[in-house]
């Protein structure tokens, strides 16, 4: 039983969690009028996906997760008091996500390292320092507390804050705001927009 649960969680990590940037992008299509938070839809999708006892029979995880997300979006729509004229129309129009994510979510290792360092650099100073000592130098929270003259629980708070910031950042598409990419893919992006 315990082993089975471990296998199920490993499947979730490997097949479903890695879809997060794509799922978030997909979820945004259901949230165009700003009434629902796309990240809430993804959060709920994860909770429903990990609950799946028959995960071994899921042949296409992307299609599976997309179907759940659609249901979450539909439930959110039903809970609403005010329906905007496009929300329902949008819902009819949005097609299931076609494929498992391709190369675009798999970052080159150097690129990933830079993305992570960028995320840390954006943290407030004390938080960044505690995080650097924990993750770059592998010091324990106690050691960090002594070094920085803080309580262990304050160090924990900094680490939690840093982790929360980074995990959200990793869940979105990395590098999209990159100037080089934007300059280079501008015409492609417009084509993409036009198709939508």
């Amino acid at each position: 039983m315990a082993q089975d649960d471990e296998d199920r969680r490993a499947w979730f990590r490997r097949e479903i969690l890695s879809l997060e940037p794509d799922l978030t992008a997909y979820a945004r299509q259901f949230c165009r009028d700003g009434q629902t938070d796309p990240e809430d839809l993804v959060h709920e999708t994860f909770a429903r996906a990990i609950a799946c006892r028959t995960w071994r029979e899921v042949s296409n995880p992307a299609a599976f997760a997309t179907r759940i997300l659609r249901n979450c979006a539909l439930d959110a729509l039903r809970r609403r008091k005010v329906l905007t004229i496009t929300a329902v129309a949008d819902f009819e129009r949005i097609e299931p996500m076609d494929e498992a994510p391709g190369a675009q979510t798999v970052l080159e290792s150097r690129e990933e390292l830079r993305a992570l360092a960028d995320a840390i650099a954006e943290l407030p100073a004390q938080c960044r320092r505690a995080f650097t000592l924990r993750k770059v130098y592998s010091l324990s929270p106690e050691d960090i507390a002594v070094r920085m003259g803080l309580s262990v629980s304050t160090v924990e708070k900094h680490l939690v804050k840093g982790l929360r910031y980074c995990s959200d950042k990793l869940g979105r598409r990395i590098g999209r705001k990159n100037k080089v990419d934007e300059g280079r893919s501008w015409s492609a992006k417009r084509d993409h927009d036009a198709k939508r």
Partner: protein
Amino acid sequence: MERETGSRRETVRQAAALWVVRLDDPSCSDADRAAFQAWRDQSHEHEAAFEREAVAWARLDRLRALRPPGERPDRDLLEPARRSSLPGLSRSPWARGMAAAAVAALVVTGAMSFGTSTAYATAIGERRVVVLSDNSRIELNTNSKVVVRYRNGVREVKLVRGEAVFEAAKDARPFVIRAEGAIIESGNGAEMAVRLGSNGAIVTVRKGAAELDPNPSVGHDEMSLKAGVAAVYSAVGGQARPVSENEIDRALAWRQGAIALNGQSLEQAVAEFNRYNRQQVSITDPSISGLRLAGYFQTTEPKGFVAAVTSAFPVRATESADGTIRLSRRG
């Protein structure tokens, strides 16, 4: 950095992150582990949130690769100003080459230079990003034009027509936007949108801060604008009001090729669509002008917008000989 701490999602994720940090602490006790098991067993929401934070935590172990050999711990190693000097993070020559090529391509296409100034323009329905030599960015909306002049230690950009978003790169030289006779001095790293109207203009500061002088020839009524403030001004003066992030996002939805409506009247919505399209929409019956709309539409698809309006309201659409779509009351 700030997130809505009140949300249920955030509460669960915070709790999950705390467990991840605790369980990875060498001094984590058996009682702590038991408490974690109990928490995780409470719901699949907890279970999934924990996996998500744990995976991110594990990915962050890659940062160890940045540790300089044999040094004592340096807690400011990842400070923003120092990061670029880290060997593991230097950009590859290929990436640097691409960046230069991208800038060159943007500067060459469709730009007209006269001496020291360069003009960039868009046609109706077009959008465009211009990256300047100092890495400042200008994003032009439909039917817009700017003239850029960098000289005498000043970065000056004049908005001649339409609407644009300006992102001033950090630089010792001031970044000045001229629009409708006013002077807007942008703070370093600031981002703001300026839109010209029939009489005056509106400036919305999204990031950083700016100084607005609506009429420099008259004298001193400068206004300090900070992020989240919009100011409407004309030659006679200006008025600032706070705007929410959502409101700013809606006003700038055109950057994603969209018009975001949130309770605007049909009349306002039609005027907005007409900015982006040669095919114009007109309201022939004043009694429908005040209908309120919400939703998200493609700027270049007036027909989709018209279809949504006619299906939601008692409105009829007819197309006249010159292609104009006329809206009138149905029944």
